[in-house]
């Protein structure tokens, strides 16, 4: 599963795009220009990238309230996403969804979800579909450490095992569910172990290491594609910002994030490794940095300039016919 140069660049581009998207939102939100509740994915990019690099548009994912990273990694249009977050008429969901409800069905992105634990049953159902289609496609749900305690998620895992469905349960343990620590809320203190108890293969990796995620996910997807039933992947990671933008983060030691940014930044780690091993040059990555910065600039500009979702559309899109 060694990645060639093109794929490595792709991985970096995905992670960098997510990072830049979120860092820019962090700034824009502070200005008050963006409505609602926004949860940034900064710091967790390697998970979305490492998992989604194995998927095509015909594979499905379901995401969470912290979903921008998953959307970008699955190929959603970045400008359409930004517009959606600004509530614009031509946002990916016409401004009706917002940050927590971005979907793109052409890309197999079945939706972010603002209900913690809402997604895994849906991804499980999508795997019923791919299994019936018999086309070797798979699904994956993303969820946090906090989501791993939700009853709907346990049910989905059991159902997936019972029906031997090709679906991957990805748990991003970023240490907290809102203000509550994983070590408190997950009784077993071991999400992967608990998943194993459900009768599926489970792996635990450093979510700050793209290569670790990519390799583990690859092995698990191989198992899924071989028809051997579902699997779980726990990725230990941190989020660089608060639970939502505006979170005072009193539950965190002052230097917690700083330390993580130092030692666990997936972008730094990736760059170090690929340049260290001579797989890519700094200049390759710098070029991507520049392109991504330009893309995000454009996304924010276009989003700001785009027309607001029109009130005439308030009552459309509820039903196909009624």
């Amino acid at each position, binding site marked *: 599963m060694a990645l060639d140069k093109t794929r490595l660049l792709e991985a970096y581009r995905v992670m960098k795009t997510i990072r830049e998207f979120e860092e820019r939102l962090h700034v824009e939100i502070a200005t008050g220009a963006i409505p609602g509740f926004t949860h940034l994915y900064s710091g967790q990019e390697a998970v979305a990238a490492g998992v989604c690099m194995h998927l095509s548009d015909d594979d*499905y994912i*379901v995401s969470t309230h912290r979903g921008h990273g998953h959307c970008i990694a699955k190929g959603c249009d970045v400008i359409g996403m930004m517009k959606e977050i600004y509530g614009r008429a031509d*946002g*990916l*969901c*016409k*401004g*009706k*969804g917002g940050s927590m*409800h971005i*979907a*793109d*069905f052409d890309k197999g992105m*079945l*939706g972010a*979800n603002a*209900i913690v634990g*809402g997604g*895994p*049953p*849906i*991804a*499980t*159902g*999508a*795997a*019923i*579909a*791919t*299994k*019936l*289609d018999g086309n070797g496609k798979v*699904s994956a749900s993303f969820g946090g450490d906090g989501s791993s305690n939700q*009853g*709907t998620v346990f*049910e*989905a895992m*059991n*159902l997936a095992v*019972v*029906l031997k469905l090709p679906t991957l349960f990805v748990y991003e343990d970023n240490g907290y569910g809102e203000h509550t620590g994983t070590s408190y809320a997950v009784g077993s203190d071991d999400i992967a172990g608990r998943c194993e108890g459900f009768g599926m293969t489970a792996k635990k990796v450093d979510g700050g290491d793209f290569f670790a995620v990519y390799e583990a996910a690859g092995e698990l997807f191989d198992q899924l594609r071989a028809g051997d039933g579902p699997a779980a992947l726990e990725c230990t990671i941190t989020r660089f910002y608060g639970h939502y933008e505006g979170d005072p983060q009193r539950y965190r030691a002052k230097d917690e994030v700083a330390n993580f940014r130092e030692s666990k930044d997936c972008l730094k780690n990736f760059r170090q490794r690929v340049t260290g091993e001579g797989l890519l040059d700094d200049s390759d990555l710098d070029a991507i940095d520049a392109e991504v910065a330009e893309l995000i600039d454009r996304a924010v500009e276009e989003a700001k300039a785009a027309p607001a979702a029109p009130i005439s559309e308030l009552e*459309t*899109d*509820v*039903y*196909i*016919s*009624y």
Partner: protein
Amino acid sequence: MPVKSMRDALNETLHAEMARDEKIIILGEDVAGGAGGTGVEEAAGGIFGVSAGLYTKFGKERVIDTPISESAIIGAAAGAALAGYRPIAELMFADFIGVSMDQLYNQIAKFRYMFGGKTRCPVVVRMPTGAGMNMGAQHSQTIYPIVTSVPGLKVVIPSNPADAKGLMTTALRDDDPVVFFEHKALYPRKGEVPDGEYMIPFGEAALVREGEDATVVAIARMVTFAEKALDGLEANGITCDLIDPRTTSPLDLDTILESLEGTGRLVIVDESPPRCSIASDIAGMVASEGFDLLKAPIQMVTAPHTPVPFAKDLERAYVPSPDDISAAIRKVVAY
């Protein structure tokens, strides 16, 4: 036309539609029955027999027994629908919406809107419903008022075998999510059922009887009770329009208002407790949009504001009776 029970009418419709469209799958507890047992493979066909024979006919890929995990059942149906299928999810009893509501309320109902109209989620959730079989407080509820309140869902409640067939066929071809309530006490109810393809559009009430003195709106089993009440009253010269809305979302308010143009008097019968019920819902709409037509206070005949009791007499007293309906009709007529 052949005479069939509502159960058989539904069962045959499921067979016909699954044969027609291979994207239809069905999942739920014991929709086949027998998996992991020592006996026959298809042991149940649904606890009420509505899905009997589907497993044998269409196989375990399309007729899927599940663990007792209602959130996963409805959620999986949602996911399969987003991925191109037309799943039928069965809640063994409508009451179990308690453990599965999120997937219906916050997910299926809202996908199309939240995602800007870019997807469809053609799930049919079947829910055996209603009191009358002494099953107690947690196995006898109506639930449809709650579901009707949810934008994004369509709500179907047939009162007879022919409607059950016509509405189920429509449900299984509809591109929106549909919640299909089947009153348990009506499963054995027999009636003529058209052969062949038969569809009834949603949002078209049935005018079950015509009359002059009042308009009676009734749902599901209450239609049969209203008919009993009317049988008695007709002997006394009181006749009524009897309207069965058949779907509460969309609701055919027009047919009710048209009838009120003739009668001016409205009785609404709903087996649910009174608050935020279909009865008060229709009454409220009529008080708003049909006020000028009304010649008397609207009468609502509902269950009391209590859970469903177990004991026979109590449950019989709980469910609106033909006598309760007659009394309400007499009251509006005498006004």
